[in-house]
């Protein structure tokens, strides 16, 4: 039987995504510092729209697309269909994000923002095609692949709703107010794209890194159907029926799915042979636990007897992206990136003395987490209680953490140029 060197994608399909995402994280942190006051107001305003879209495309989606170019061949046991498409996707995504974010920041809803949005949509469609064809050519079929494929479908749906909203800004053709559709757009993106994809990928990586002896796949399957049922019903209600009712049912379905996923992860942990967790896995587990924060805020918002403060919506969105997504990516970067670089450094005809863990610094990852986590909690508390005295220190801690993360990522990638490793 042949082994899969052929499955290792070229550097250009992965590394530019990681580096750009790391740079974007620093930019986002700085943008947040200069817009702290905006977080105290309504969430629907130019600077927050710009920051949110940079977070979504420049940070979260950017690193996820790069990682999926690396992981899909492993999950599907098939070479990536095209190695040219990821280069085109990267360029389109970078260009589109720059234009879109700049336009939102200045709230210029003229032709450039439409160009930016269509560049991003094209990038997402091309990436999805690459993933779909790779999977179609593979004989591997399992629930993890279903999660990943469906997440890509929801990504396209989210982008289409987003573009519809942009047109609605200009031409105002949608029957109810803009904020209603914004809610649908954001929720589908968060639960449909980010959540489903993260569940799919982590369901593969967590038991692998922990060396789990028991994977309760039935809970993953139940999670898949519950979350998708919730999303489909929410989409129908939000876009067609618009009765503004039934939210408790959609949220319950999605929350039920998340609980099933958490049970799956818990079983993986309980049956794990590797109990000693490195910094990457510790960060990952903290991130997975932190998914409860937006959940609690959402429930508190829904259960609020009178009109809930709008800061709860801002806090909900912030805790999802700033807490769950960012912490998860920060942790998984140092599980995946050193390994990716290591694969390009080493040659199969030599015994490997160099190991992926030699390419990064564990203490630096812990320091980054130690700064980011309190920073995030300070900032979140600041949003909820309207306190700049909590938000500014939180912001500074997150900036330092993001600079460490960015410099560390660059350091790992630049090991490829390190003369010391040339002979490996």
């Amino acid at each position, binding site marked *: *039987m*042949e*082994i*899969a*060197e052929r*499955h*290792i994608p070229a550097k250009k399909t992965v590394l530019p995504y990681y580096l750009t995402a790391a740079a974007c994280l620093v930019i986002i942190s700085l943008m947040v510092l200069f817009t702290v006051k905006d977080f105290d107001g309504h969430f629907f305003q130019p600077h927050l729209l710009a920051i949110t879209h940079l977070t979504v495309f420049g940070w979260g989606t950017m690193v996820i697309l790069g990682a999926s170019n690396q992981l899909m*061949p*492993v*999950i*599907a*046991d*098939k070479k990536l269909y095209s190695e040219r498409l990821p280069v085109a996707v990267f360029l389109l995504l970078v260009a589109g994000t720059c234009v879109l974010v700049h336009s939102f920041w200045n709230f210029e809803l003229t032709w450039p923002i439409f160009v930016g949005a269509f560049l991003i949509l094209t990038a997402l469609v091309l990436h999805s095609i690459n993933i779909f064809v790779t999977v179609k050519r593979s004989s591997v079929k399992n629930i993890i692949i279903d999660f990943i494929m469906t997440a890509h479908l929801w990504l396209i749906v989210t982008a289409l709703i987003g573009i519809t909203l942009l047109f609605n800004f200009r031409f105002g053709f949608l029957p109810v107010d803009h904020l209603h559709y914004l809610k649908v757009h954001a929720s589908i993106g968060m639960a449909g794209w980010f959540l489903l994809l993260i569940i799919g990928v982590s369901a593969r990586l967590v038991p*692998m*890194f922990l*060396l*789990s*002896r028991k994977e309760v796949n039935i809970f993953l399957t139940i999670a898949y159907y519950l979350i998708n049922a919730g999303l489909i019903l929410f989409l129908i209600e939000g876009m067609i029926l618009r009765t503004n009712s039934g939210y408790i049912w959609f949220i319950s379905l999605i929350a039920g799915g998340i609980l099933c996923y958490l049970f799956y992860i818990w079983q993986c942990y309980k*049956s*794990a*042979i*590797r*109990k*000693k967790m490195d910094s990457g896995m510790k960060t990952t587990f903290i991130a997975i636990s932190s998914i409860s924060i937006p959940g609690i805020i959402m429930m508190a918002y829904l259960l609020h007897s009178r009109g809930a403060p709008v800061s709860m919506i801002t806090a909900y969105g912030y805790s999802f992206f700033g807490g769950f997504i960012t912490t998860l990516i920060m942790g998984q970067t140092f599980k995946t990136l050193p*390994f990716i670089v*290591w*694969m390009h450094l*080493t*040659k*199969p*005809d*030599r*015994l*490997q003395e160099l*190991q*992926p*863990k030699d390419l990064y610094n564990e203490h630096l990852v812990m320091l980054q987490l130690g700064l980011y986590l309190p920073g995030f909690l300070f900032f979140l508390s600041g949003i909820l209680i309207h306190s700049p005295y909590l938000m500014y220190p939180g912001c500074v801690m997150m900036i330092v953490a993001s600079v460490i993360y960015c410099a560390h990522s660059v350091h790992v990638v630049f090991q490829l140029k390190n003369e010391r490793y040339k002979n490996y």
Partner: protein
Amino acid sequence: MKDIKITDPCYEEKARLLQLLSLVRDPELELNIVDLGLIYEIEIDKEKKLTEITMTLSTPACPAGDYIKGGVELMAKEACPGFEIRINLTFEPQWSADHISEAGRQELGW
């Protein structure tokens, strides 16, 4: 991997090979491939000058597969100089964490 019997005519060679194979580490799982249970069988035929190793990987698409196989080949050449080295890669039975040896589990903090 079954224990090598001391009565095995190639006991010494097999034991040395196994010792050398334990220098090859799975970079993802950070454990040597012998304790990880990736080596299923070792056959040494002194007459035919043939060393045959049956092994697996943690997953069929293991991205480090090529490097692990390369390491196994290298160690086999060192343990059995002048021998033909044949590496049979199999996924039957499929590897699971249950294959990890007691020493491996201890190293992983189980």
